[in-house]
């Protein structure tokens, strides 16, 4: 009974880690897609291409910020 519960808990943990890993891997792809759509709309609105790229870069930088914050909070929790 106890062993079954431990095995099941382990399986849930593995599932959680795999899910989070998958999210982390697909995040970069999602950011690229969103940035492209963002820049397209800016250019449609009459913003010069270079400026649109610059603004797109700023938009995509949130990903780094979020990752940094998550790493920071995990580090703080560990201490």
């Amino acid at each position, binding site marked *: 009974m106890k062993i079954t519960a431990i095995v*099941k808990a382990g399986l849930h943990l593995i599932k959680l880690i795999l899910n989070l890993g998958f999210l982390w891997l697909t995040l970069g792809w999602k950011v690229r897609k969103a940035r492209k759509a963002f820049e397209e709309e800016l250019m449609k609105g009459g913003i010069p291409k270079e400026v649109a790229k610059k603004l797109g870069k700023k938009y995509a930088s949130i990903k780094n910020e979020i990752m940094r914050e998550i790493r920071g909070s995990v580090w703080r929790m560990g201490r």
Partner: protein
Amino acid sequence: MIGDNEEIERKKRGMSDAEEVREILGAVSKEIPSLIKGIIASVFSEEAGRNMGKAAAAFYKELKESGMPDEVAIKMTENYISVFTSLGDLMKKFTKGRERSTKTKKEIEEIVEEAVEEAIERGVSEKLGKEIERRVKKKLAEKGLLEEEEE
């Protein structure tokens, strides 16, 4: 006492620690990824990017039409975007909120002590000064700004 009650309660339900952990992990492994997925999708999806782009472009267009110089319009659009993308700041505030509140408590304590020292220097008796300090700290503790001292 509370721990004993919990233990009895768990035994009543016929649950062991391992089973409880299994249940918790089962719920967590379902809920956490979907929660994170939702947060990410609200900022980083094709549709979200398109909507933000539309809003920023409309803002820029308005600025240009009202005769704003190019550089200023771009700078203002950049600021406008950073309003949308302040999720990082929000997280920062959220994760650092506890540290800041501890710092504020220390600052209040220091201010009270400094004020009392100053009052003593200006001729208020030490006994009265300490009494005022005690009362101020008590009031602050009542309002949750300071931890109450044990007497």
